[in-house]
């Protein structure tokens, strides 16, 4: 299969990036070193090419109604310039993906009453889902998959506001979390949102793919790859679609995955009735943090057990935390496992002592 390339592919190649296959895209995994990039974002500022994220523009009289019926959060009351995090569930409440839904300001030249941003490699599937339900429900909306012709750049870190503020006349410090505006950044029209996946203050900018290089150059600071993006999100306990939940390999509902804050049972959406049942009955397993006490690095697929070796669950994501200096992991564990409890993670057959926590790992 040919990998999809972001509009900045040539720029990354010139920049000496190491590339990886992620969600069907060939993306930078590392520019300098994961640690250097991670520290830049925690301590100052870094920029990421996240053009692998999907972009579906939904327009028309029923754009809001259609989108609202396909995501777990209520996005019908979003004003232009607002955005919301939501899960996308099937009839049984199983998460297919998670997403940020934007209501772009009218001033944006891209025709989008709603902009749905699914994860890498999910854009075609979600395009099909939106159009099939539109037809089934007889709604009047146009769905346009703009993933290939839009670029997305994230600028993240405590200094992100200063860095970006220097390139635009918009007062980015005024934006609250999940607020978006149309901004001219060094001559490039962007949808500039105060969103991110790192736990730091930061912004995500969406622009035409033709302007990707100008935008990337304008926000010059430490370039960061998907490696640092993963360690940063994992320290915050943020979910990675397809890894911390997967409709076939590891089906999970938002209550198990700790994102029930993004479920609005007063909203009518696919999966709502199943999730109301989950809300009443509770869950048997829940995503927990696991912090290694012993030396070792937990990885996806490693077993989590009691001190006596009884199986409790499996690591969905794990790494050495660059900030904390020890291993951290996410795993679905029985709800009776209490935070603070000591467990074991089997690292290549060796049980390593670890402690259950509630993410985020960073306070």
């Amino acid at each position, binding site marked *: 299969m040919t990998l999809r390339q972001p509009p900045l592919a040539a720029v990354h190649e010139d920049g000496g990036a190491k590339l990886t296959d992620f969600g069907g895209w060939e993306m930078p995994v590392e520019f300098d070193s*994961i640690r250097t990039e991670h520290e830049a974002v925690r301590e100052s500022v870094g920029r990421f090419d996240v053009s692998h994220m999907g972009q579906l523009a939904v327009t028309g009289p029923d754009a809001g109604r259609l989108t609202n019926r396909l995501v777990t959060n209520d996005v019908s009351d979003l004003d232009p310039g607002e955005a919301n995090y939501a899960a996308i569930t099937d009839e049984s409440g199983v998460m297919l993906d998670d997403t940020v839904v934007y209501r772009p300001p009218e001033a944006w030249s891209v025709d989008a009453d709603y902009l749905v941003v699914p994860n890498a490699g999910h854009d075609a599937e979600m395009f099909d889902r939106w159009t099939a339900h539109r037809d089934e429900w007889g709604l009047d909306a146009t769905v346009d998959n703009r993933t290939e012709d839009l670029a997305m750049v994230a600028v993240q870190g405590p200094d992100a506001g200063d860095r970006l503020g220097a390139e635009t006349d918009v007062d980015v410090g005024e934006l609250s979390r999940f607020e978006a505006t149309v901004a001219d950044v060094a001559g490039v029209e962007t949808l500039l949102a105060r969103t991110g996946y790192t736990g730091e203050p930061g912004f995500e900018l969406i622009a035409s793919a033709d302007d990707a290089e100008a935008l990337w150059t304008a926000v010059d600071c430490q370039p960061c790859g998907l490696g640092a993006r993963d360690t940063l999100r994992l320290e915050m306990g943020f979910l990675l679609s397809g890894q911390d939940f997967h409709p076939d390999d590891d089906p999970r509902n938002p209550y198990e995955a700790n994102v029930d804050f993004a479920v609005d049972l007063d909203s009518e959406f696919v999966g709502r009735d199943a999730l109301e049942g989950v809300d009443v009955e509770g869950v048997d397993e829940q995503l927990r943090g696991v912090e290694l006490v012993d*030396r070792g*690095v937990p990885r996806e697929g490693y077993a989590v057990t009691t001190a006596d070796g009884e199986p409790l669950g499996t690591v969905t994501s794990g790494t050495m935390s660059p900030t904390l200096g020890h291993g951290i992991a996410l795993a679905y564990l029985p709800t009776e496992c209490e935070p603070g409890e000591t467990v074991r993670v089997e690292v290549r057959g060796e049980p390593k002592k670890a402690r259950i926590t509630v993410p985020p790992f960073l306070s």
Partner: protein
Amino acid sequence: MSFEIPEDLRYLDSHEWARVDEGHARVGISEFAQDELGDVVFVELPAEGATVTAGEDFGVVESIKAVSDIYAPVSGTVTAVNDALTETPELVNDDPYGDGWLLEVDLDDESELDDLLGPDAYADQIA
């Protein structure tokens, strides 16, 4: 990008090196290998007195993003391990041919050295 490949070492195609001196060898991983791995955060090595076998894995080097088995370029008995790597595994990145060495071995069979790559052959392999 070009990587340092010291002339006085012998290499395994899986990117380990051996510096041989009178029946004894110091073993590590190449500059190319540490660059591929990225930030090394954990090194697992056999204890002194253990035996290693040429071509077989004897431990792991783990970076933030990946776990990689390490293979013995030579067979023999481990006479020393680099304890500094317990606290500062990043030495493997910073100085792969110097302070980032992994272990030392008393060779069982010096003729095994003939099976290893010279610097030119190794350079061709990673080119």
